[in-house]
């Protein structure tokens, strides 16, 4: 199945893209997305347990992803 992965700020700079499409096995969890992204060039700049969002709400790494979901890897936020 295919999921959309969003990267922002320093994480997007590290990977060189702000959006990816990943092919994952059925039953994969949000944490699997992080593992895959950390294996990419520049991926080690991301911490092993970053903040995560699934479909625009904070999520744990154990949340199950489904086809078409949007997973975001969230750098330390700095609004205000």
């Amino acid at each position, binding site marked *: 199945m295919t999921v959309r992965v969003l990267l*922002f*700020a320093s994480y997007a700079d590290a990977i060189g893209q702000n959006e990816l499409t990943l092919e994952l096995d059925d039953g994969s969890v949000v944490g699997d997305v992080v593992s895959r992204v950390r294996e990419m060039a520049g991926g080690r700049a991301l911490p092993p347990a970053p903040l995560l*969002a699934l479909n*625009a709400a904070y999520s744990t790494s154990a949340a199950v992803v489904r086809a078409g979901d949007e997973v975001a890897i*969230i750098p330390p936020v700095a*609004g*205000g």
Partner: protein
Amino acid sequence: MSTARLTTQPIDSTSLIREVAADDRGAIVLFLGTVRNSNEGRPVNGIDYSAYDAMAVAEMQRIVSEAGSRFSGVAIALEHRVGTLSVGETSVAIACSHPHRAAALEANRYVIEELKRRVPIWKREHYLDGTSEWVDPLRRPAEAAP
């Protein structure tokens, strides 16, 4: 009745005040976050703000809704700007109104602290020496403390 939104345009704080003003309000508290000319001793001449737009708006709406539950009767207008801002410009504005001042003040504090803690917005500071860096508040224990 509360609102939360992102904008790419300069923030008009007067319009936020107007949104929450009403005859039964005895207090209106306005908070403005503005771009400071230095950070950790380094001269700053501007900040680029970016957001995960859909989630930032959803999270800001959750925060004003929580504030409405905690401080019954409060009305809130929250606006955060994204894009390139110069020193002195307003990056965030929060207007809270309530029949009485205590709830208006506390609700405003709640909204800005929660926004800084959890809304997915990032800033890249541009320094006078021509360099720039993503700001990571977690690397600054003194500033991260509530």
